[in-house]
């Protein structure tokens, strides 16, 4: 590890530990939800920003993880820790299942198919009453076990556990992208798939890897959400969730993994802050953030790093979101 990287890791760990010092349940609750969104936003970025396979269905993978975890704990009294893993596994499998047909699709088509997939998942959640509880969702399925029983101590430990799991997931993606061949494979798929193939890069493998890891971690985020909020309803699978996630990623900076995580923490904070102004204005703000950043700041907050005045770094071409424009 280079020295700036050690420094950055230390700073992140310190920042993550900060909310523990504030003995207020509201702060801890906000912080816990924010890190869950950070994991979800960076998982979207791995597939869509970094590998260029635009997914409009991450709400679906998120909901799959949440529903699998909740349903297993509710109906089979499964331990939440197993539920988390199984939720992630189911989401990863469905993600891989989407990845196969998606090998034939690019750009627009992939986005539309994943949007339809999420809508189908929402439809199943709403109508498969015996398992999903229908429109009311699943509740009363318990929370994390083996932690302090109640009070601020429990909130603190839960925050630390959730933050550690989310950080591990984000760390795994950063490792994949920066320290393994897969990272270069992902970037090659994003920049020019045909060229990458002609150079002997196994684009199929890298796309499937991106799909599996991304949807699996989105499912993990869903499981964390389910056990933390203790209610899963069909609205988690709605397009509004996907929109929020994409807004966070665009805000933070596409194709950096850490940018969307940062964007999620900030946007979630702004979002909750705006609740005091008026409940409806937070999504107005999300919509504005998406539009302004796509048009003017495609590299998001991450692109502002190092240079003042909002200049966009051009060390490599700003990601256009999908290497394979419909050609």
């Amino acid at each position, binding site marked *: 590890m280079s020295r700036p990287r050690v420094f950055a890791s230390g700073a992140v760990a310190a920042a993550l530990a900060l909310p523990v010092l504030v003995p207020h349940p509201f702060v801890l609750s906000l912080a816990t939800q924010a890190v869950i969104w950070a994991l979800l936003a960076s998982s979207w970025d791995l597939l869509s920003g970094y590998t260029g396979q635009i997914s409009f269905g991450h709400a679906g993978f998120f909901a799959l993880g949440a529903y699998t975890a909740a349903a297993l704990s509710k109906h089979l009294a499964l331990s939440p820790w197993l539920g988390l893993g199984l939720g992630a596994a189911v989401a990863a499998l469905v993600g891989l299942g989407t990845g196969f047909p998606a090998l034939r699709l690019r750009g627009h088509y992939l986005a*539309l198919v994943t949007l339809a997939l999420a809508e189908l998942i929402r439809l199943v959640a709403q109508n498969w009453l015996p398992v999903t509880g229908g429109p009311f969702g699943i509740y009363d399925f318990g929370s994390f076990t083996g932690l302090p029983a109640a009070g601020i101590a429990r909130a603190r430990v839960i925050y630390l556990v959730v933050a550690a799991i989310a950080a591990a997931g984000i760390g795994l993606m950063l490792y994949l992208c920066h320290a393994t061949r897969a990272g270069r494979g992902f970037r090659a798929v994003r920049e020019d798939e045909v060229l990458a193939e002609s150079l002997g890069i196994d684009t199929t493998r890298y796309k499937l890897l991106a799909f599996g890891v991304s949807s699996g971690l989105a499912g993990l985020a869903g499981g964390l959400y389910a056990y933390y909020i203790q209610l899963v309803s069909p609205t988690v699978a709605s397009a509004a969730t996907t929109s929020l996630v994409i807004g966070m990623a665009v805000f933070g900076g596409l194709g950096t993994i850490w940018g969307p995580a940062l964007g999620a923490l900030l946007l979630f904070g702004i979002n909750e802050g705006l609740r005091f102004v008026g409940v409806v204005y937070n*999504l*107005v703000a999300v919509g504005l953030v998406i539009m302004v950043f796509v048009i003017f700041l495609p590299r998001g907050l991450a692109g502002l790093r190092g240079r003042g005045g909002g200049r966009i770094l051009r060390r490599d071409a700003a990601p256009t979101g999908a290497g394979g424009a419909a050609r």
Partner: protein
Amino acid sequence: MESLVEFLIQGVVLGGLYALFAVGLTLIFGVLNVINVAHGEFFAVGGYVLFAAVVLLHVPAPLGVAGAGVGAFLLGLAVYPLLIAPLNRRLGRRPAGSLYLVLTLGLSTFMQSSLLAIGGGDYRQVPPLVRGILEIGPTGVSYQRVLVLGVATLLLGALFAFLRWHRQGLAVRAVSQNPEAAQAMGIHLARIFSLTLALGVGLAGVGGALMAPLFNVYPAVGFPLTIKAFAITILGGMGNLAGALLASLMIGVAESLVVIVVPSQWQNGVAFLVMIAVLLFRPQGLLGRRAAR
């Protein structure tokens, strides 16, 4: 048997609405290469304009419907110069890829939540624009639905005639075939792009007004329709207007008839399953020209 005829009629009416919506979406995609994720929000705007006109201001219904179309059209005129042109300017010659999708998704969220902020989250009820039931043999269909189908047919006919014969319509078609060549012939690209977008979302606005008495009006009323219209445009072949028309009717009828075999709450799944199947087995769509990749 009677119920079969009834379902069939309902399906055709639904198909007419889908066509009004999907043909606009397809036109925009064909000319600007933009998939307008915010299309349904213009449908919602149409519904709100009608609600404001008929229920709050007591304006005659036909004026309300026309106002809904004009309102959506005017909003649509602003989309190209304010959102798409600046993005194109920044990108220069680089491909936009899916950035248009993300951009219009932002617009969709913005419009939907703005409607929520202005109009509140309540379901707004609008009385039928026309009352009564048209008797067809043993069954009947409400005049409201007949009106939907009639206006949809009229407007789509007008649109096709416009594209076929009018000077500006020819320009729209020229731009959709080859923007550079069209520009070289003296066609003002930016004007055609703005006009096409406004026409497309204007149709959605009229659709929203016509359906308001049947669907009620609320901020998210249009979004499910957008996703369904994606399925329809893919079934018909991306950018293919006649295909979109045909696919709209097919999906409308299929959705109405499927209720005979499966519970009605699964009805909305039909379009999505069709979409996934089409993309896997015939990605160019029913009337598509070249293979989609």
